[in-house]
């Protein structure tokens, strides 16, 4: 099963209290800005800018949220972000785990070179490929399309790296057993190995979704008409001006942007609890 200890003994009590204390303190420090963000999104603009900042709102107002939803064509932008994030995440989960599996468990010529190359691109700073990528995408006629928004990110080197490392630790005997039973390689992969990778898949899913959801610069440049804008782009439209920043709108927007990620996290994080059923082998 997982690494849960069996009965809690007496001297574990002290350890437990200490642990809780540290965790709660850490939690307060960590969650602070998020709480401030949430609370401030219902304050009037002047109060948000007050120095020193207030915690609990002196006046509660929903004006920023109202403005957000009335000025923005919210369902459209939310929908665009969702489609792009889901497609990107699904694609990454399949393609990266397939390649990760091949790199970790299948011997094929050129695998070391391929891995080195993929890993290498992970190390290339993102900014530098931006303009060439855009020129490439425009020449392919993919500007202002979902394909243009999704395709460049479907093959993420990070996912390959994560899945490969995780798959390395899956015992070969399970795979061999499945092969002996006559399963084709794809079935071995899909029905036997992947279910064992839930924690890694959940992790990759969350991280990819997050990256795609928060992606700002690429959708801004690829979308030439507003109906293809994603949520972060639309939010930046109204909250950051040439000479002023509308903090209230920006905070309300930030809350709205964060919520789906938190939801995805809550849904997927159950899968962290599933351990590897290696005991079944014995």
């Amino acid at each position, binding site marked *: 099963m997982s690494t*849960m200890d069996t009965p809690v003994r007496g001297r574990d009590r002290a350890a437990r209290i200490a*642990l809780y204390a540290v965790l709660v303190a850490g*939690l307060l420090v960590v969650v602070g*800005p998020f709480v401030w963000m949430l609370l401030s999104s219902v304050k009037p603009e002047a109060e948000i800018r007050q120095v020193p900042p207030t915690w609990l709102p002196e006046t509660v107002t929903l004006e920023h949220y109202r403005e957000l939803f009335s000025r923005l064509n919210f369902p459209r932008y939310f929908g665009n972000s969702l489609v792009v994030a889901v497609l990107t995440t699904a694609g990454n989960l399949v393609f990266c785990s397939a390649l990760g599996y091949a790199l970790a468990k*299948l011997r094929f010529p050129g695998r070391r070179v391929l891995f080195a190359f993929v890993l290498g691109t992970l190390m290339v700073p993102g900014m530098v490929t931006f303009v060439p990528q855009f020129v490439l995408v425009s020449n392919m006629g993919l500007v202002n399309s979902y394909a243009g928004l999704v395709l460049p990110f479907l093959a993420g080197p990070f996912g390959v790296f994560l899945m490969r490392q*995780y798959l390395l*630790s899956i015992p070969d005997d399970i795979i061999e057993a499945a092969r002996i039973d006559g399963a084709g390689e794809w079935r071995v992969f899909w029905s036997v190995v992947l279910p064992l990778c839930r924690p890694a898949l959940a992790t990759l899913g969350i991280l990819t979704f997050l990256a795609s959801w928060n992606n700002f610069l690429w959708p801004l440049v690829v979308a030439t008409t507003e109906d293809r804008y994603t949520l972060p782009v639309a939010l930046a439209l109204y909250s950051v001006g040439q000479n002023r920043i509308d903090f209230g709108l920006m905070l309300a927007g930030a809350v709205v942007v964060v919520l789906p990620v938190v939801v995805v996290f809550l849904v997927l994080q159950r899968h962290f609890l599933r351990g590897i059923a290696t005991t079944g082998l014995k």
Partner: protein
Amino acid sequence: MTAAPATTAPSRPAATDRPHRTDGVTGRRRRRALTGWLFAAPFTVLFAVFMAVPVVASLAMSFTDLRSTDLRNPWSVDVVGLDNYVRLFSDALFRRAAVNTLVFVVVGVPLTIVAGLAAATALNSALVRFRAAFRVGFYLPVVTSIVAIAVVWRFLLDPEAGLVNNLLRVVGIDGPNWLGDSSLALPSITVMAAWRNFGFLMVIFLAGLQAVPADLYEAARIDGAGRWAQFRHVTLPMLRPTLLFGAVVTGIGYLQLFEEPFVMTRGGPLSSTLSVSYHIYNQFGFGNYGYAAAASYVLFVGIVALSALQFRLLRSSE
């Protein structure tokens, strides 16, 4: 963990499998190679088109004097060879940025890993309930917009009204202007970055911890190992691939430090928080595309070097 798959198959595959081959092992190897490439294909194709081509293009760009004013006619630029790279090393701003970034990485990566591992281990322990709440909580800074984080941290570090200095005042210390002092700004940003990113590592380490079979802990306990010994001799070794992954990814991320100085200090005061990525961003903003590309590839070399070092130190047997 390293069984040798090739020898567990039955001795000689039936001749019916391969009418034209007498050597079954070669056939199997070939099939395996094909399967391997089939699995790799979708990713490799997408990757080659959307990643490899731009990377090569931008590498070529770094050997020219391409500026933003040449964008309509990118082929008419001059090839300047290694000129950009040489200029980088006589650029005082770049040198400063490089030093700042190195200091940040050397301090920040271990700090974040320790925090992430501690959180993951704590949350993995049976002693803790409300695990989900803690998990989500610790992960929140990773997903919270950097702008909200910046506002709160600027308040925390405000020399007069800020929480940090007020707490210090309680014990009689007169706290400095954390972000305004050119020798304290970088350490402040380092702590803030570790705080912001440890949740990311926590999530990854949690997945890794889940992969450690319970029987190994059982065996250790039977042998009389206490909790710390179990951690050292069971958890850490089993976690090696994941730790390596975490270290490499964090190192790569931190070498590209950008958001925190961009939002909190704009690289100041007096360039004390200017990072290499920020410098590159500025150069792209100025339109010096060739020069910025060269700086990016120098950064790339740095990233490769750091990752190679980490692989060497933390390599797991494959």
